């Protein structure tokens, strides 16, 4: 293992992390819920009365972020290297997996670790390990 100093952004990442923490704190203290994106988005495919609008409002906020970011800083275009097929398969796996595990990087990662939940710690270690093994396989074993 060598450190990728060219792409290492400790301060921007720390600052972004603090913003994520701030949003998480606001959600828990104002709405009384953990801020878990897979749970919030997952509820949108289940359409229940009085349960959809707040989810849509939140997701609309997420989608608006690149527009506001472009106004404040600079427009961004994501660099997505994966091909169409890989993206479709990956999306399916992320959708099914996060719902079975009841959480993703935000719900288990940020909120769970903030609450010192052993369940979320196990989930976080499991998806990180699976991610590391997947990247190692695709980048180094198969390439």
């Amino acid at each position, binding site marked *: 293992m060598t450190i990728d100093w060219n792409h290492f952004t400790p301060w921007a990442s720390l600052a972004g992390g603090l913003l994520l923490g701030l949003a998480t704190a606001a*959600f828990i203290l*104002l709405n009384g819920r953990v801020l878990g994106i897979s749970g919030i988005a997952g509820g949108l495919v289940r359409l229940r009365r009085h349960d959809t609008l707040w989810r849509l409002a939140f997701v609309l*906020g997420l989608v608006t*972020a690149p527009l506001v970011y472009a106004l404040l800083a600079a427009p961004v275009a994501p660099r997505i290297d994966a091909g169409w097929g890989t*993206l479709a398969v990956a999306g399916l796996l992320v959708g099914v997996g996060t719902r079975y595990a009841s959480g993703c990087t935000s719900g288990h990662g*940020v909120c769970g670790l903030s609450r010192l939940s052993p*369940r979320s710690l196990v989930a976080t270690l*499991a998806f990180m390990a699976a991610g590391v093994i997947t990247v190692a396989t695709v980048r180094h074993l198969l390439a």
Partner: protein
Amino acid sequence: MSKQRILEFLIGLLFGLGLMVSGMTDPGKIIGFLDLFGTWDPSLAFVMAGAVLVGALAFAVARRRTSTLLGGAFDLPWSRDIDSRLIAGSVVFGVGWGLAGFCPGPALVSLGTGNLKAVVFVLAMLAGMAVFELLEGRMRRTAGATT
């Protein structure tokens, strides 16, 4: 639009900006972080540290309160089970995360850039979530029929 909906929108916006500033919306950066056996970019550990630092304070405050700042009830996860569902689900998620470099939040934020690849990922993700709802509903009905 009620005040509450505007609040949820603004929190989503703040979260989305945090994801962008931190580098989480760059799939190349995510894969760089997961590439422990290649050239490793440790940045995302700093994202987690910053988020958990503030998050832990919020949960410490929440624990001392009986209602939210707006007077509502807290609705926090109650399950403590570390079962095969949790682990298998997390592993399946991790494989998808490693393949595309997208987890749910950054994928939804990337919709706002108009990138067609992000649209495909999000549609597949929602389809996966719908598959979960279908299987979950079927399992619940089967369990109901046998008891």
